[in-house]
């Protein structure tokens, strides 16, 4: 899949005043078949918007999306339908992404009916059961409604639904963020397993570095609508180049009490969107005069490591160890 210069501007109306918010600005990347690309960022980074645009749940304001070589950016719903079969999505909230009035059987049979994959009721049921087993659920769950399940189980149903059409690619939008830690581990392992078994390609969106590290081959770091760093996972974690990436890593509390990270809490400055310079200016401690005037472009640090910064980091590991 290829995404070129994607941009999304939202118009909001507040008592007659129309304001524009640029959620995504000039995002480009490719995803190779079989890899898991991670998209990490906090709220407002635009990562969810990108995820939605790729499966055309939102239409980009400008830019191109190419799925398997085909430019799908301007296709209408009907023309895009065959792609939907192959490019699926799993949402974050297992409580609201399933229709509360449909049983598991109905929920999972719909994709089969809609895409005309299988119309016969009996055969549909069989296919549904097969996929249910794949995600670790059982036949007895078929006639239950979503509210009868736990969060983890609902998410399994959501994954099953995405699998019904035998897709090649799945966008996973924070699939475990709403789940308990122990359940999260189960779902992550399940996703890895399914990827291997069904030859899938993933776009994994999250704000959790640990999860990204566990699941992804390559990572894109987003900040205020732009990609600020792109690198293979290991490299990103051992030598992050962008100050924001380092900032993220330092901010995440590690469950190991021996590893501390000092944070200057007196960080009072609000994040402002500067017109000319770098977006990260207000929180950056490495700012050069250049950072105020020119918006940094993505620069290659090595063949597969890109960073959007005038003064990227060069040192390795950011963690301090006590003793």
């Amino acid at each position, binding site marked *: 899949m290829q995404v070129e210069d994607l941009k999304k501007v939202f118009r909001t109306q507040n008592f007659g005043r129309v304001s524009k918010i640029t959620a995504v600005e000039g995002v480009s990347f490719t995803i190779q078949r079989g890899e898991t690309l991670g998209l990490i960022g906090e709220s407002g980074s635009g990562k969810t918007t990108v995820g*939605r645009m790729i*499966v055309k*749940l939102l239409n980009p304001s400008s830019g191109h999306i190419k799925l398997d070589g085909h430019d799908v950016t301007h296709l209408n*719903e009907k023309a895009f*339908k065959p792609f*939907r*079969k192959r490019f*699926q*999505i799993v*949402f974050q*909230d297992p*409580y*609201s*992404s*399933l*229709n*509360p*009035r449909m049983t598991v059987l109905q929920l999972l049979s*719909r*994709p089969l009916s*809609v*895409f005309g994959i299988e119309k016969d009721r009996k055969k549909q049921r069989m296919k549904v059961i097969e996929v249910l087993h794949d995600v670790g659920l059982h036949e007895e769950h078929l006639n239950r409604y979503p*509210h009868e399940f736990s969060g983890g189980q609902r998410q399994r149903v*959501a994954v099953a*639904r995405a699998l*019904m*059409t035998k897709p090649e690619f799945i966008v996973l939008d924070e699939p475990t963020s709403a789940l308990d830690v122990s359940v999260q581990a189960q779902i992550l392992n399940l996703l890895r397993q399914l990827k291997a078994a069904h030859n899938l390609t993933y776009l994994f969106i999250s704000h959790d570095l640990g999860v990204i590290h566990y699941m992804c081959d390559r990572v894109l770091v987003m900040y205020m609508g732009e990609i600020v760093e792109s690198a293979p996972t290991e490299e990103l974690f051992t030598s992050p180049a962008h100050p924001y990436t380092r900032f993220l890593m330092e901010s995440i509390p590690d469950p190991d009490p021996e590893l501390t990270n000092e944070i200057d809490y007196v960080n009072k400055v609000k994040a402002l969107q500067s017109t000319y310079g770098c977006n990260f200016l207000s929180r950056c401690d490495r700012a050069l005069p250049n950072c105020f005037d020119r918006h940094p472009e993505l620069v290659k640090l090595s063949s597969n490591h890109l960073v959007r910064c005038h003064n990227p980091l060069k040192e390795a590991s950011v963690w301090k160890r006590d003793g």
Partner: protein
Amino acid sequence: MVGFWIIVAFIFTALFAPWIAPYDPSEQDLLASLEGPSVAHPMGVDFFGRDILSRVIWGTRVSLTIALMAVAISAIVGALLGSLAGFYGGILDEVIMRIMDVFLAIPSILLAIAIVAALGPRTSNLVFAVSLSTIPEFARIARSAVLVERSKEYIEAARAIGESRLSMLFRYALPNSLIPMVVQASLRMATAILSVSGLGFLGLGVQPPTPEWGTDLSLARTYLEIAPHAGIFPGIAIFLSVIGFNFLGDGLNEALNPRLKDR
């Protein structure tokens, strides 16, 4: 629950009227005219010598049937219009809702009077008149319910598996919007009964000799001082049925709404 049982009682009465009513409601016993409640006539007799109890019982049929038909029609039409407006939005939404606003601006009783006066007091016209003023209410409810559902994630998920917009509306959004509709239906039954009775009272409703609470009330008005029972009992019937539906509506609201709130 109270409401539920009251309504059940009324429905029962309506269904089994021919067997429960002690007299034929049109049967006149002029000698007994305007007699108060007695063993022979537990609710008394009206001006024309007709047994009030029987008239009240048969009246249940009339009121309930008309109200039911009116509410059913307006619910279906209103729901359709409202959900289309809510789901598709844009110009369709504007057009439909402005039309609804027009009807809402006109007091329902006036609208009903106008229609019946223009078209004549046939039952079908009554149903039409009462339903017309109720349609906007349902449209509103349906529209807001659908609006709420529309922004929920499972609708997006439906898009992702390729559902058409119409399908999303009918298969996903609408079923989840039913609860406020059901509650509203019960409450509207109360209003409808009031409208029917109101029209009857004004002489525009069901025509005599058909027993109807409103018309009977109107008849009794003249003689209220000497024969209050002739007015009291139909009045109580109206009162109880309206309260019954209101309670039922409230009860339904309580019972059905929190249930859908997930953990």
